[in-house]
């Protein structure tokens, strides 16, 4: 079972923005995402919205390059005005192709192979 090194991007964001965020993540190459309901506090305190206090936690497994681009996009478009926290960590997956755009199913072995070789 060959394993591949990928990145896990976790973004906690006020719910009202989730749809727009997911659109942006897909544009950058996310092939999937998982969302869970969350609540929290940060530098902006409790959150705004119809039911105050609500955040959502979005996580995306993707490759290092796209993960980088996602953080950059967040820093440009979301951090200045909105309540967002984000972090990246290293993860290992079995089917790398599933998490890289344009290769669902096949597996772009050269690229992901290089990563898993780190």
């Amino acid at each position, binding site marked *: 079972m060959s394993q591949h090194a990928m990145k896990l991007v976790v973004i906690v964001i006020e719910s009202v923005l989730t749809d727009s965020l997911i659109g942006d993540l897909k544009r950058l190459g996310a092939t999937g995402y998982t969302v869970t309901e969350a609540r929290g506090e940060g530098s902006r305190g409790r959150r705004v919205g119809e039911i105050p206090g*609500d955040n959502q936690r979005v996580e995306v497994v993707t490759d290092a390059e796209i993960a980088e681009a996602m953080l950059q996009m967040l820093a440009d478009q979301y951090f200045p005005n909105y309540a967002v926290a984000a972090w990246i960590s290293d993860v290992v997956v079995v089917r790398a192709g599933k998490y890289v755009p344009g290769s669902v199913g096949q597996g772009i072995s050269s690229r992901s192979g290089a990563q898993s070789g780190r």
Partner: protein
Amino acid sequence: MLDILKTNLLSPIVLAFALGVAARLMRSELRLPKDLYASLSIYLLFALGLKGGVELSHASFEVIALPAAVTLLLGVITPISSYMVLRHLGRFTYADSAAIAAHYGSVSAVTFIAAQTFVTSMGEVPEGFMPTLLTLLESPGIHIALAIGALKVRSQRSTGQTLHEILTARTMILLVGGLLVGFLMGGEGWTSISPFFEGGFKGALTLFILEMGIVAAERITDLRKVGAFLLGFGIVMPLVHGAIGAVLGSLAGLSVGGSTMLAAMAASASYIAAPPAARLNLPTANPTYYLTASLAITFPFNVAVGIPVYYWIAKLMQG
């Protein structure tokens, strides 16, 4: 007038709100489950629409035309007057002024229901088509305020997107959809579902308002942050808009009950439809301002004091 006020203060709605506030101030852990709160709001809006639709099926076009026209007029006046006052007297930023104006230009359905409950308990019989006016007043104010904002603050979002969001927002679909369903099914369909949608209405509202009290009280510490101007705005602006509403309603031929309800709509500030719209389209506006003003100042003011005042004005007008 004092008598009316006292009766109103001892109504289930006002008492439930006060209980919610008290629970929060005592730092109780009491909260309605999130899904219950959302469910109650869906139920209340849909019930409002259905009932309104059934009654609309009995009304003729001529009777509604003039009230509908003044309602739309109020939808233009209230966001602009709010913006002007906030920007020029209050010296708020463009974004903050527009965002708060979006709230006061739209309408609070719960205030509407509170007004309906109040006038009915006063023996008035408001027009059956009032929920139709409610839906007319829901969105124009938000659009106008956001448009003013967009002129002044660079926005990355298209007008079409915003328009779509507001017109398809939960509130809109439930109210307008409810009106249509109610209109089409008529009295017979209504009989079978009214034990659920009418019988349970007041009680469900009481529970909903309990939670609103808790949420409003959470913002009480923010009252200091919003400053004296906004505090005054949250009380005086509704009185002005309410008075205009009561007068225009009476001139348009609405009954005392109907005029009071129109006044309450004009005076009320949205806290369901407007906040997400403001958050998305005017991200630099401070949510503390608009949420605290509409939810922790204007809503309780209207429910406890404003509505009886508008009623008194409407009576004076038609007396």
